[in-house]
């Protein structure tokens, strides 16, 4: 479904991504792990056009999207839940959901109802401003907003960041549910153990490169992963 081949991203003189390659197949949850500054967010930003790749290819369903403008991605079927949630603070919950459906030409009233079933708390808060929600509620809204465009590929950037363990639990539960409905998920996470338990496969980034990749269950038991990302001594 998604294939990245030797993508290079430079910020001026600094190279953030040194030719990374990865693949996401239809129906999978694939996670991208790595320390702060390893290039995870840059990778995700590249996958939704926010960051141009100077070299390499990004193929989505066989089409090269490396030079596509960010505002055309939702129409392609790729939706991005950005790091830090980035809810529109002065818009109500409903208006934020409207924004998620911005590129749709058809009626999306049913989709809003679906989101309210999936995230009942958002229904209670529908008239409140996004900026007044709690962190967990904002994360749910950010995911719901991204789903409004009915993406085939959902990109999630650090959805557990800054949330209480119980909320993280339910967010991961929801990500699993989203996959069940047929949406492919590409998940960037610092919370490696949770992410690997949910994902089918994982990539591990170091210094702007893909260091290694494997099935998630293998990575969970991989001593390199356990040492660095799961906080265990090898």
């Amino acid at each position, binding site marked *: 479904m998604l294939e990245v081949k030797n993508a290079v991203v430079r910020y001026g003189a600094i190279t953030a991504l040194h030719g990374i390659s990865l693949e996401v197949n239809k129906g999978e949850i694939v996670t991208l792990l790595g320390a702060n500054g390893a290039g995870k967010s840059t990778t995700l930003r590249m996958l939704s056009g926010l960051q141009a790749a100077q070299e390499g290819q990004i193929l989505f369903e066989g089409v090269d999207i490396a030079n596509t403008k960010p505002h055309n991605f939702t129409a392609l079927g790729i939706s991005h839940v950005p790091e830090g949630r980035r809810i529109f603070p002065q818009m109500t919950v409903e208006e934020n959901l409207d*924004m998620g459906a911005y590129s749709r030409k058809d009626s999306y009233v049913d989709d809003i109802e679906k989101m309210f079933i999936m995230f009942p708390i958002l229904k209670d808060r529908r008239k409140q401003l996004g900026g007044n929600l709690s962190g967990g509620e904002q994360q749910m809204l950010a995911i719901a907003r991204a789903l409004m465009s009915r993406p085939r590929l959902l990109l999630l950037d650090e959805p557990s960041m800054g949330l209480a363990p119980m909320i993280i639990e339910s967010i991961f539960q929801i990500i699993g549910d989203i996959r069940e409905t047929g949406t492919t998920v590409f998940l960037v996470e610092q919370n490696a153990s949770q992410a690997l338990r949910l994902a089918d496969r994982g990539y591990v980034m170091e210094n702007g490169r893909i260091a290694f990749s494997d099935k998630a269950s293998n990575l969970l038991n991989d001593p390199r992963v356990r040492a660095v990302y799961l906080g265990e001594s090898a």
Partner: protein
Amino acid sequence: MHGFLSYLNAHFHALRLEFWGLFIGGIGSGIIYAMVAIGYTMVYGVLRLINFAHSEIFMTGAFAGYFTLNYLIGSSSPTGFSSILLIIVGILAGGITGSFFAVVLERVAYRPLRIRKAPKIAYLISAIGASYFLLNLAAKEFGRIGRGIAQPYQNHTVFTIFGAPVEMYNIIIFVAAGIMLIIVDRLVSKTKLGRSIRSVAQDSETASLMGVDIDRTIAMTFVIGGFLGGAAGFLYALNVGVLYSMGFTPALKAFTAAVLGGIGNLRGAVIGGLILGVTESFTVVFFSGAYTDVVAFAILVLVLMFRPTGILGELIGRSA
């Protein structure tokens, strides 16, 4: 002490006599400031910059209305339905011309800087340059003397409020500006276009992730602000005529109004405009009329010193 009290007493007596007349006049100029202020505040919302060339958008709209009406009216004296029609045509001429020049301004003076991620000071210099260009172009093409506009209606006192006359001109301004302000308010708060403008103001990068074309949205913001600015120029010209430099003072006051209401805040711009218009109208009671502009800019300085976020604060912008 006694002298001072009788001074105040005399002036408050004058205020009582003049109150409604000054109030009506103040609302009339205030609503023009409000229309222009919306252009400043909306552009600030999406670009974080003060479009200092907006004064010339006002001027181009005034000239467009002037040429259109002088052509259509000639030496006739329109009344009734044709008056209304001519006013609408003048508003459209001013508004469309304002939109046109605002969009050209954005393309030529601002977009190239945005693509190059230029520092904010570059926008300011570019704005001043564009403003001088349009100002001097108008001076060269249209001359440096003021001209009266062909009147599309016969001005007369329509009714009185507590003895203060309300003239046809007041009613035209109030109705026309009121309708336009309501339409823009609805447009921004209820439509998809309005949501796209607000989303870019709040978080442009995330707006683009939602599918919002930022360049197009910024251009549309200039279209709306330019229309109001140009139409306001025409309404202003109905009263005082046209001159190449006519935009400077009202636009600076509209900028004051936008800051007073809270830059980036649409309704704040309207409230700021009305407060400023009424306040400066009442200054003639206490000082001479020559102090009107001084009072307006004293308000600007005081707001910037004591409450830089304005009365309503920044609403359509990012939260801190």
